[in-house]
């Protein structure tokens, strides 16, 4: 008989599973971040979506294995804490809010084994990450812009880059790209779950 989403707290096995999946996910995020960073357009609008696409597989493995409320909250909160330790302390409360909203979408029985609910929760988390990725760019932008202007950097190039980083329409476009990639990621992840992990009996 399949277990339902339990209200009890995480056991050690659950913690280890979450940590293992998060580490892989975070390493992939770092790799994607450093590969896309030289191309600001891709970094700003695409990196969160690519992370969401690949990370969905690890999230789904953890969600289907642990199947306990609080997993998505812990996932997003720990991501925020790591961002904080890496220098973006102002992002910690932001990620806690994202974590809370994402977790609220998972309310209900057996939701962590429900593909649709996982898709919704994961997509919200990824959109939150996308907006969170843009914040440091704005922050780094100020120092870069100040120095660039003082050094006589081409004003047209600067204004073009600035409008790219501040336009609400482009931000919405980025959120849509992120959501599409996150949804595709959960579809791909669900396929891998059925094909490999459920057959092997390591997830429920």
């Amino acid at each position: 008989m399949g277990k339902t989403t339990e209200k009890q707290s995480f056991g050690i096995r659950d913690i280890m599973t979450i940590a293992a999946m998060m580490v892989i996910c975070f390493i992939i995020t770092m790799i994607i971040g450093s590969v896309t960073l030289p191309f600001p357009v891709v970094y700003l609008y695409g990196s969160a979506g690519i992370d969401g696409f690949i990370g969905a597989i690890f999230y789904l493995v953890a969600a289907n294995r642990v199947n306990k409320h609080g997993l998505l909250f812990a996932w997003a909160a720990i991501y925020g804490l790591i961002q904080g330790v890496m220098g973006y302390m102002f992002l910690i409360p932001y990620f806690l809010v994202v974590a809370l909203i994402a977790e609220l979408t998972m309310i209900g029985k057996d939701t962590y084994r429900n593909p649709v609910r996982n898709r919704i929760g994961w997509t919200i988390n990824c959109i939150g990450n996308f907006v969170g990725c843009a914040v440091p760019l704005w922050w780094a932008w100020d120092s870069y812009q100040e120095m660039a202007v003082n050094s006589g950097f081409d004003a047209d190039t600067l204004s073009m880059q600035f409008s790219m980083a501040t336009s609400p329409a482009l931000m919405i476009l980025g959120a849509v790209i992120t959501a599409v990639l996150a949804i595709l990621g959960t579809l791909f992840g669900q396929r891998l779950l059925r094909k490999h992990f459920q057959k092997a009996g390591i997830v429920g």
Partner: protein
Amino acid sequence: MTGEKEKQRRIEKIDGRTVLFLTVCACIVTFLSMGFVGHGIFTFWIFLILCWFGLYKQAAGCFGVYLLAIVGLILETKYQISFPSPLLLSMVYKLLLPAMPAYLLAKIPSGKLTASLRKIPIPARIMLVLIVMLRFAPTVLHEFGEVKEAMKIRGFLKSVGNVLRHPMDTMEYAIVPMVFRSLKIADELAASAIVRGIESPCKKESYYVSRIAALDWFLMAVSAGAAVCCCVL
């Protein structure tokens, strides 16, 4: 060999909370300092701390990349060069500073780190996830290497064209064994931790003594002062 022992002895002497404090100071400096001078001075201070703990190679590597990023950024903005992106260099030099004390944090034995962090008011479960992640990262990187080797031997990575033609298949071949191996290690770690009584509700004691000693006070006081000065500069 003696050098290694001395290095380990020094690392074991420092409290996890002190290194966490250093990381927070580095975050504050990297976030608040607007000029290169203040940022550079604090990075040099962290470089010295890493050297004192015997992590010469890592300290020199980080500081070298830091200097390269700053010099690159100055040259790029002066001569209007846009590759590699100045934004990338800006992020590199800003992120390297908190990464250096974070590396020292990762070098502290997990038992000692756990004992130190238990004294900080973080929920125990979240703290445990963070510590396991810190320990798990090198294992995962090693496993990535193993999976990559296996894929090469089986001919899945024979050419870039092959990978680009079948990106989803390549990803599946890489991710599935990676997840299986990681879950196996996670289960073994969980079993080991349970056997050692991690789920016991009673108050935990540690093999390591966790207290803020004179060295910790010194490092924290100097780092806090340096952080304030570097932010003002």
